[in-house]
């Protein structure tokens, strides 16, 4: 059936099977391989994307459920060849090691900052509670979000 939606600012029309999940079409039909599949069961968060401003596991959403919605994937963070501030602070803080969790982690953090420009450490922890990272121990990730908040604040003010 026909799926019409917006992915990273581009309107898309695709023919999809009802049992296809959002992650399947992002990766296989749209070639957006930045979104990773880890567990396929909502536990690891590697597949996190943003749907209408909130973080969602794309492995638990049927593609058709995304009809008429706005999706942002990791590929949509970069603007005009420049990395998003969060991507830069992740690199600065060494919050990327093997990198498998990183796209999902970034999307969870981005969703947080879209709703809350000055989150507390507790709020950051809560926002990434559905994202598993085996490498960093989370501290560097939290630091990266803090840095983005602080520099973002300076840029705006």
């Amino acid at each position, binding site marked *: 059936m026909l799926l019409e939606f917006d992915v990273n600012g581009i309107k898309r029309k695709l023919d999809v099977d009802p049992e296809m999940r959002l992650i399947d079409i992002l990766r296989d039909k749209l070639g957006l391989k930045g979104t990773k599949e880890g567990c396929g069961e*909502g536990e690891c968060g590697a597949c996190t994307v943003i749907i209408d401003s909130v973080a969602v596991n794309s492995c*638990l*959403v049927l593609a058709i459920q995304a009809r008429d919605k706005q999706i942002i994937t990791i590929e949509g963070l970069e603007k005009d060849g420049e990395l998003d501030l969060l991507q830069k602070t992740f690199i600065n803080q060494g919050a990327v090691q093997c990198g498998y969790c990183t796209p999902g982690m970034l999307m969870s953090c981005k969703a947080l900052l879209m709703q809350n420009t000055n989150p507390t450490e507790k709020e950051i922890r*809560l926002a990434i509670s559905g994202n598993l990272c085996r490498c960093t121990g989370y501290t560097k990730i939290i630091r990266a979000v803090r840095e983005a908040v602080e520099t973002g604040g300076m840029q705006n003010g």
Partner: protein
Amino acid sequence: MDKFTYKTPVTLEELVESLKSANENTYILGGGTDFVIQMRKKRLSQGVIIDMTGIRGLNEINMDEDHIRLGANVTYSQLYNNPFIRAHVACLAQMAIKVGSKQIQNMARLPGNIVNASKAGDSIPVLLALDASAKIINSKGETKQIKVQDIILGMGKTILNRDEAIIEILFPKPTINTRSSFGKIGHGARNELTIANVSLAMITEYNQINNIIEKACLVVGAVAPVAFHAAQAEVFLQSKRPSRLLIPQLADILQKQVETVLKGNVSSKHKINDIRGLAFDVFENIFTDVI
């Protein structure tokens, strides 16, 4: 043909129309956090999926004279983010923020938790304590209101027919004296994503002027196949003044009740300590300003 048909009703009339041909291969889809996993595990590949998520007007939290009404598409995140729910139906907000992760809370909804009827379903003790009902619509367009208590028959079992869908959850409006809390202790590798081993929802009518608990309602989840009222604890708290001294006694009563339900099941021994801990957490949470 080995395929799913996917229906996307936008109005209740269209939902009723979609329900008309419902049979054992019809699946109602809410947030999908249980369904998509089951679909893949059971390798379901044919039948009809009726997607509730596009139905207009079902994503609202409303209030009338006597009831709070939650549309079937209200997510856990919406519950937690709603200032009224947070302030006046604390047990519901506290439950919502403890379900899964942010990503799950952004998609998952109450009807899915009820119909999934897992022993560990976090919303169930809360909805029982709130004396909540579900508004159900069928393929003839008829609606009825049934207590959540009477909907769940056992693990994975409900009274819902294939041609019925939950469109609303409603419960009596809290009074100015209503105070509540929810706690769960679970297993899981992390603090987050814990599946409840034991959960406890407690709602009280507390008259601050007389300093008296006029009524208490306690529901224990995840111990028996279906959550149950801790009747003795409810009687015990009635007409008492809240104090820290009450808590160990409350814990004893809850422990006894859980032990009776477990009937010496050794593998569940830890639930006994857990329920004691929850008695402290939940009671202190409710009465922190007066004890």
